């Protein structure tokens, strides 16, 4: 086998890793859409906010320091502590659950029963509010996020595979962070699946996703379930925020990863967790292989649009996505 073959495999593997990252963001969308029929535009900003909060807590930033200093004439910026990564992840999770509770009470409950488009608009408002709120709370500067995940190339894999493809091939180059992301995302999905299959609350989540009225009639409190769902989606956003934030730094562009989740959702279906995973992997692998094989012939930068074109083609032939519920409208 020539070096070209192994390079293609390397591109494929890197595509899988990138796909996992897309899938993570898409997962947050699916959780909320399935249980409440709301397309949560704010999912990307939630990832940004979670990452900002994580860095803020970890490095001991004083929240709203600009505001406090301006109002009181003080000059506080840091508490002067540094909290271990795992503890700050726990604290940030609590913040995200608290945030879920506030969103349900202040936004979704008053709007319950409204048209989906109105709820969608509300999440757009929520997204911009959170973006500003996050900047006000933690400052808008680019922050470095480091919770102790290893970064850089994995030399063990590179050395072990170096002999495969002859003198022109130097082994597979895989980023440690990507490998970790893949492992963590897999564990997260397995845990979520087990929870929804084998616990009372998990069954209630699925019940609410299927039929609100029937769920109420067996005693399920919709509001409580929504807090759980948004809390879990907040946690998923935190995980995505950590992965992408470790890679790119915590900055505004983090919220735009949500745009990459859109084609993943169109491909996998808005209502399917396995769909979000498979959709993410297909897009990740597809765009990397396309750029590798076809990109050089047509001037490159195909990663910017490939996913959307693929999603568009899918929409035409299978509007419910690969795994989504079939759309049957009775006349």
């Amino acid at each position, binding site marked *: 086998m020539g070096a070209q073959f192994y390079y293609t495999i390397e591109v494929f593997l890197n595509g899988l890793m990138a796909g996992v990252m897309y899938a993570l963001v898409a997962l947050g969308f699916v959780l909320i859409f399935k249980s409440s029929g709301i397309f949560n535009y704010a999912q990307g900003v939630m990832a940004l906010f979670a990452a900002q909060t994580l860095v803020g807590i970890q490095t001991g930033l004083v929240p709203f320091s600009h505001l406090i200093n301006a109002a009181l004439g003080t000059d506080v910026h840091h508490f002067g502590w540094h909290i271990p990564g795992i503890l700050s992840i726990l604290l940030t999770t609590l913040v995200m659950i608290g945030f879920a509770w506030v969103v349900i009470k202040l936004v979704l409950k008053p709007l319950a029963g409204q048209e989906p488009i109105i709820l969608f608009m509300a999440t757009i408002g929520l997204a911009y509010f959170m973006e500003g709120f996050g900047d006000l709370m933690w400052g808008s500067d680019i922050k470095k996020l480091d919770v102790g995940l290893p970064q850089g190339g994995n030399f063990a894999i590179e050395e072990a595979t170096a002999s495969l493809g002859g003198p022109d091939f130097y082994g597979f180059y895989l980023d440690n962070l990507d490998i970790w992301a893949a492992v963590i995302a897999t564990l997260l999905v397995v845990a979520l699946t087990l*929870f929804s299959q*084998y*616990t*009372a*609350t*998990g*069954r*209630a989540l*699925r*019940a609410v*996703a*299927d*039929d609100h*009225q*029937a*769920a*109420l*009639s*067996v*005693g*399920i*409190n*919709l509001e409580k379930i929504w807090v*759980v769902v948004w809390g879990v989606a907040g946690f998923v956003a935190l995980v995505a925020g950590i992965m992408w934030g470790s890679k790119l730094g915590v900055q505004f562009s983090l919220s735009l990863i949500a745009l990459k989740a859109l084609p993943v959702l169109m491909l996998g279906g808005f209502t399917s967790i396995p769909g979000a995973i498979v959709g993410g992997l297909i897009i990740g692998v597809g765009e990397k292989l396309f750029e590798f094989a076809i990109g050089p012939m047509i001037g490159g930068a195909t990663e910017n649009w490939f996913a959307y074109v693929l999603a568009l083609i899918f929409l035409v032939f299978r509007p419910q996505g690969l795994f989504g*519920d079939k759309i049957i409208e009775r006349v």
Partner: protein
Amino acid sequence: MKDGYTTPDGRVIGDVVMEMKNITLKFGGVTAIKDISFDIREGEIRAIIGPNGAGKSSMLNVINGFYHPQEGEVWFRGEKRGPMKPHQIARLGIARTFQNIALFSGMSTLDNIMTGRFTKMTSGLLAQAIWKGKAEREEVENREVVEKIIDFLEIQSIRKTPVGRLPYGLQKRVELGRALAAEPKLLLLDEPMAGMNVEEKEDMSRFILDVNDEFGTTIALIEHDMGVVMDISDRVVVMDYGAKIGDGTPDEVRKDQAVIDAYLGVSHD
């Protein structure tokens, strides 16, 4: 009839479980229920019948809290019920089925009936997440109850089948199972035999009678054709255009001139 009565087939009917007092329900300018009062007694099979659009389903929705009447009082087990949400009313022990089957179609028969046990499972979210202690015990115990219901309804062979794939008659039976799983003090059935063929209707009637007989469950059911309902119910409320036009045993109701007129379509004046 103050302290209950004995049915012709010898079952003893007890005290009043649920009492509706002067219920009026309006949607904007339309009055769906006009000043209706009736009661449901312990151990009874109570039917609400009437032509299409008589307000029967609205009445059921008032009982289980989907609708809130503008006027009137609902008394349940000796207490006046305040304004409550449907999920809270489910916790009081009122379970129901729906006219157009409302099952969780993506879930298996077993999981659907397990959701019926939701109010019986009280362990915390964290305990459930790690599946330890009370949460684990609850899963096992409730699963046993559910298996008994599955045996009772003779649906063992479809335990793991996603209910969306089941034929209509079986779906109705699974829905009955989900309601039974709550061990309700009052079971509401909204047209349990609608759309069924004769054989399925007979099966369903038998299950309704068996539920009442074996568990002593109080049942209120809606039907719009007189046939089977008259055979299985102890007392019947007849509604027409939102008003109550008859109330009594099937025999009494059958002879009632107002009821006959409503069913034969005599003009309202």
